[in-house]
């Protein structure tokens, strides 16, 4: 009886114990009656045994993998970045502290001058200053009380020795000064009107008067020059900061940053990710 391919498959599976059920029983029955099947099974068994004798070839070397082989880039430790950040923040903090200290020293150096300046300013009352200013015609020009061109013309008409203050007196008393008037009377009237007019004017223009400064070198021929200044800034001493300054906030922020970065660097170094 010829052995078919199916017989070979069943014999091979039988040899490996992979045949079961009805196929196994049928093959066993056939092998009992068919010596060719028995011989074929024997051949397969020997072949399998020969294959089993093949030596197990050991690995000639280790095949362990390196990071380069698998394209694996090892993670760089992160703590140097935190450490650098801590150092940079420390330097910034030191800089801000130095700046703050310098500012504190400067304020301390300015401290004695401020009260003196304040005293000087406070000695002169506002009306007196206004009265002084009224005597100066150029101030009137500056104030816009008298037109500049008109004033120049009037001054040219007047004798050179006549005091310029008479214009102010005329303006103040509201009538022209007569030529026949006695000099003493004129002086007394002028003085009275001058004072009252100046006081009134000072009351009206109290705020604005103090806003101008008349140049001491000014003459009638020259253009009256005025310089504007901020009175409040001049009179009052430097303001003391009452709340938390920007530098203080910066110092706190930087201080927290230094501590935070240092702690992060320490933890990262101890427990690398």
């Amino acid at each position: 009886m010829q052995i078919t391919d199916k017989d070979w498959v069943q014999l091979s599976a039988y040899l490996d114990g992979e045949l079961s059920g009805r196929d196994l029983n049928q093959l066993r029955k056939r092998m009992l009656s068919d010596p060719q099947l028995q011989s074929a099974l024997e051949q397969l068994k020997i072949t399998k045994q020969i294959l089993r004798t093949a030596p197990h070839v050991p690995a000639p070397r280790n095949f362990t993998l390196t990071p380069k082989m698998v394209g694996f880039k090892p993670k760089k430790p992160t703590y140097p970045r935190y450490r650098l950040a801590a150092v940079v923040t420390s330097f910034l903090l030191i800089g801000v502290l130095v700046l703050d200290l310098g500012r504190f020293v400067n304020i301390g150096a300015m401290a004695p001058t401020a009260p003196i300046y304040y005293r000087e300013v406070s000695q002169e009352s506002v009306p007196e200053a206004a009265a002084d200013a009224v005597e100066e015609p150029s101030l009137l020009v500056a104030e816009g009380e008298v037109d500049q061109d008109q004033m120049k013309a009037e001054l040219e008409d007047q004798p050179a020795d006549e005091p310029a203050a008479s214009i102010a007196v005329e303006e103040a008393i509201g009538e022209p000064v007569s030529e026949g008037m006695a000099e003493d009377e004129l002086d007394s009237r002028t003085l009275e009107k001058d004072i009252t007019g100046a006081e009134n004017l000072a009351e009206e223009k109290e705020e604005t008067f103090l806003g101008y400064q008349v140049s001491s070198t000014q003459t009638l021929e020259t253009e009256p020059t005025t310089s504007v200044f901020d009175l409040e800034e001049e009179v009052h001493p430097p303001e003391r900061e009452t709340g938390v300054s920007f530098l203080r906030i910066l110092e706190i922020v930087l201080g927290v940053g230094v501590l935070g970065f240092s702690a992060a660097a320490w933890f990262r170094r101890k427990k690398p990710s």
Partner: protein
Amino acid sequence: MDLKDQINKSLEGDLDSFNQIVIEFQNLVYNQAYRILGEPGTAEDATQEAFISAYKKLHTYRGGSFKSWLLRIVSNACYDEFRRRKRQPVSPLFPENKQGNEVDSASWLEDPGEKPEDSLLRNELSEAIQICLDRLEFEFRTIVILVDLQGMDYASAAEVIDRPLGTVKSRLARARRNLQDCLQSFRELLPVEFRHVGEV
């Protein structure tokens, strides 16, 4: 640390844990590659490729037999190597250098893959077996090696080659018959008790 822990740690990127797996399985994997390819150098390359591939594809391992999963990877690596070898041009009868001039050197006749230590391993019977295995088709050869040399059952072999159980059975039977015929030509190398093979 057991295999499961090593796999889990390897999945987390721990290369050292995976290298422990490599050391544990490298003999098995290399032997499979060597028996499939028949050349030590090529088998080394395939083994290394298989472990690299295994590391990269470790997330695809869904439990079950890790040995089967690994042998499947090495069998695929061997198949890739086998196809690559087939594409390689045939060596000229007379060797030429890069300029195209004929080189008359005895070193050309030497087998570059054969080293003294390999010769020691390759005893005569082993060589005969390897020759007969090389004559089988790739898939038949793989099944025989898996079942008869590695001692795997049919189900595991079917899992490795990703074929149905019936295919494994039929191809194994056919491969064994071919090997039986081949080994008859090396009868003088067989042990005495095996020399009557085929004398039915």
